[in-house]
């Protein structure tokens, strides 16, 4: 018979920082850096765009907007982005639809293959297109075509390829949650497939479609890598900032265009958030997965289309891979490893810099974004809304704009943080805050899923908020945190537009090396650099996937 009396004494410290104290401390830790590294730099752009020779005013804006060139750039950017949207969204929808609603062999492979553009900097599509269709590209050279890829269509196609995985991920999710019973009842009522598609599928995924359009449009408006490589004489707003600031030190003009680029990004993000709220309301608890019945004609058509799409997307990295192994594309196609000697410029230093920066960013980023998510979700109070707004603010800021803001804010000798300018640390910080919103949202979703019961159980057992975090919350969400780590690593490895303004010869990174090598016409070496970036990203993904698999956490999404 056990004794049931209990004579242990409670040895918790009598003085404990109350949960309110912890909250205030954590809120401060989260918010001050967001102000320093996000809000103030953005403010810096605004200030710079408004400062003229005779004090503050809108002089820079009026003089910029009175030039014909500005409106030409706006027209170019809008035209390219709109065209990209028209190409990408229908194709990505069809691809997602085929994968969700038809029987196709090797679906996991197709799903993964179509995401490969995310593993490389956004200039690789342009690089691949030039190797394939450029003046000295494979088609012109071997098939005698006279294609002119530089310019409008080159940018549109490169952007379309680059945006395809982003569009696919959203549309695929939208199609996945559409309610099976609606389809089945439509089928029972004898509706023909095309009618079902028009009256059930499209309406059920309309929010996803709208969101995808916004995202693709904004990505194209603000993307820099592809237009700078394949644009030729065709300029868009994003390349103009670069040329004005880097080429001609026209900072005020850069600031004005930066503000202009912020407009579609902010509008797009706000509309997207409005729309996604409704999307969530559509998913009811009773929704269940659709059973796909075999239908030979449909399945063959879907398979042909899906494999053609994947082949198109994969042709870019494959041709880059090939180009990196031949002596001189396309004149001398003998295989060689000499481009991997990296005897140009700083050798392999930029590659290692990229890896170090990405490792540091991933680690710091997980800490920073998780802390923000915890403050918002585990310490609800009147400041919560504000902190959450700050945390998702970066989503609406294009990389170039944030990078330019860093130049204005940190390159100012009066700023006590001026010492950071030109350092690796600032590149890391920029990457952390540039990707902050997505990391924050991933962790938030995971925290919401585990709910409040465990917190309450822990509290009632005498655990403080910190004990709960350490012993319960973190152990439950660590696979998600590892996913966030991978997300940060991947994004930083391939990041170009955000850091382009902050690179110094000493802090050169791989993606910028690719840009400079292509610029100098060293396309084979540029290809080798791109291959290395992709290789490192894929290696990291495999490694983390393996770790998660070992620990039985198989359902964590790593590629976002």
């Amino acid at each position: 018979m056990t004794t049931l009396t209990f004579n242990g004494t409670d040895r918790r410290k009598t003085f404990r920082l109350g949960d309110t104290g912890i909250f205030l401390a954590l809120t401060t830790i989260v918010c001050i850096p967001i102000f320093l590294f996000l809000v103030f730099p953005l403010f810096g752009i605004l200030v710079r765009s408004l400062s003229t020779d005779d004090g503050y005013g809108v002089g820079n804006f009026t003089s910029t907007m009175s030039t014909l060139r500005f409106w030409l750039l706006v027209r170019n950017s809008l035209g390219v982005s709109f065209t990209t949207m028209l190409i990408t969204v229908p194709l990505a929808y069809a691809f997602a639809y085929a994968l969700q609603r038809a029987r196709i062999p090797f679906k996991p492979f197709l799903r993964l293959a179509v995401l490969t553009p995310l593993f490389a900097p956004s200039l690789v599509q342009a690089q691949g297109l030039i190797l394939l269709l450029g003046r000295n590209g494979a088609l012109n050279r071997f098939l005698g075509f006279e294609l002119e890829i530089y310019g409008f269509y080159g940018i549109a196609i490169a952007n379309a390829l680059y945006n395809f995985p982003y569009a696919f991920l959203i549309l695929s999710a939208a199609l996945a949650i559409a309610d099976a019973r609606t389809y089945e009842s439509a089928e029972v009522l004898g509706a023909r497939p095309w009618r079902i598609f028009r009256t059930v599928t499209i309406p059920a995924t309309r929010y996803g479609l709208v969101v995808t359009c916004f995202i693709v449009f904004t990505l194209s408006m603000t993307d820099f890598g592809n237009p700078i490589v394949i644009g030729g004489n065709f300029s868009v707003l994003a390349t103009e900032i670069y040329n004005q600031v880097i080429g001609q030190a026209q900072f005020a003009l850069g600031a004005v265009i930066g503000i202009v680029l912020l407009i579609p990004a902010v509008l797009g993000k706000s509309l997207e958030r409005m729309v996604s709220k409704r999307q969530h309301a559509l998913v009811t608890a009773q929704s269940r997965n659709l059973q796909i019945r075999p239908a030979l004609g449909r399945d063959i058509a879907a398979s042909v289309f899906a494999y053609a799409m994947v082949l198109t997307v994969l042709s870019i990295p494959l041709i880059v891979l090939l180009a990196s192994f031949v002596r001189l594309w396309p004149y001398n196609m003998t295989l060689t490893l000499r481009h991997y000697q990296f005897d140009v410029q700083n050798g392999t230093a930029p590659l290692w810099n990229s890896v170090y920066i990405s490792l540091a960013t991933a680690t710091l980023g997980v800490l920073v974004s998780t802390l923000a998510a915890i403050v918002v979700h585990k310490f609800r109070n009147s400041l919560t809304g504000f902190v959450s707004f700050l945390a998702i603010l970066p989503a609406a800021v294009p990389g170039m704009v944030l990078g330019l803001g860093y130049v204005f804010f940190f390159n100012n000798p009066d700023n006590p943080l001026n010492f950071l300018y030109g350092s690796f640390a600032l590149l890391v910080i920029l990457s952390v805050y540039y990707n902050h919103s997505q990391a924050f949202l991933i962790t938030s979703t995971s925290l919401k899923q585990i709910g409040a019961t465990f917190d309450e159980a822990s509290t009632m057992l005498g655990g403080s908020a910190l004990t709960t975090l350490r012993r319960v919350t973190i152990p439950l969400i660590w696979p998600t945190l590892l996913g966030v780590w991978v997300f940060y690593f991947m994004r930083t490895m391939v990041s170009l537009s955000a850091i382009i303004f902050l690179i110094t010869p000493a802090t050169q990174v791989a993606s910028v090396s690719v840009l400079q090598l292509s610029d100098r016409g060293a396309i084979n070496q540029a290809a080798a650099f791109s291959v290395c970036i992709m290789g490192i990203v894929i290696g990291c993904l495999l490694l983390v996937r393996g770790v998660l698999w070992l620990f039985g956490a198989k359902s964590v999404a790593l590629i976002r």
Partner: protein
Amino acid sequence: MSLVINSLSKHFGEVTALNNISLEVPQGCFVCFLGPSGCGKTTLLRIIAGLEQPDNGEITLNNKNLSQTHASNRNFGVVFQSYSLFPNMTALTNVGYGLRCRRLPKPDIITRSKEMLALVQLQDQADKLPEQMSGGQQQRVALARALAPDPSLLLLDEPLSALDAKVREELRHEIRAIQQRLGVTTIMVTHDQEESLVMADLIVVMNEGKIEQTGTPKSLYEHPETTFVADFIGGMNLLPVRIENGAAYFGDTPVTLAEKTATQNGEGKIGVRPEALTLSAPTNDTAANHIPCEVKSITYLGNLTRVFVSPAAHPELKVTVELHGQSPVPSPGEHLALSFAPEALRLLT
């Protein structure tokens, strides 16, 4: 030592979850909060736990006001409706969690955790993870976990409602036995009147954020004060009556009660248990406590037979009569009389 709740109120926006609740829970007592879903039971329990703040009112434990004591410092044990075991910890580690929060020496934690697991008869499941255990086992571990730090108050929020009938029955008795063995003051929330009758020393019947009646299972069953309590506990037949000059009438039939009748004239309700009713041959005169009625339908339930009848004076009513053992069973359409002893009648408000 007792828990005293004084004029507690709580609103969620427009919804009044609790309306002026006052209550005293004596030391060592097993109290059930009983009421239909949405009546505020969980809210009251959560306020006691400190997980929710009341708008008004106060809670004292041994004359000490709890309003400034954070939930984690109240030393109350809670078992939630949904299994809330930490999924990343084994049964043993779960049970030891509260002891670890109190920074007890490691050997003591292990000894105590094992004792508590033995108390709920799960000593052989110590190394299982929650997902490897059945719902009933998980709730037992949750109980052991709540009891391990020797709480001054044990709070249970519908701990059995997610379990299937057989396990629920077993656990009812087990929880009650453990509570009596440890003597820990316990509050359990339930919407199941049978559960509360079996387990509780004291039942607090709640309805729409208010306390309807408080009492022992026996006193609530035998002396319900309101129609709500009469109906909710054990299902009483409710007969509308007219009060005239201190006498009650059902239609034209005079009704005599053993307890004193209200003096005010007007409408009232009388409650009578199905098993207190008998059926007899109809009488023509309006004899007291003899209500002419027609048999509507009959349900056989083995050891008892339920007969549903409609009184002639109120044909819209459906009165349930329970006949036990060898009583002769009438057939539908028969005209009989309902009769009952004055002691079986309760005048309700």
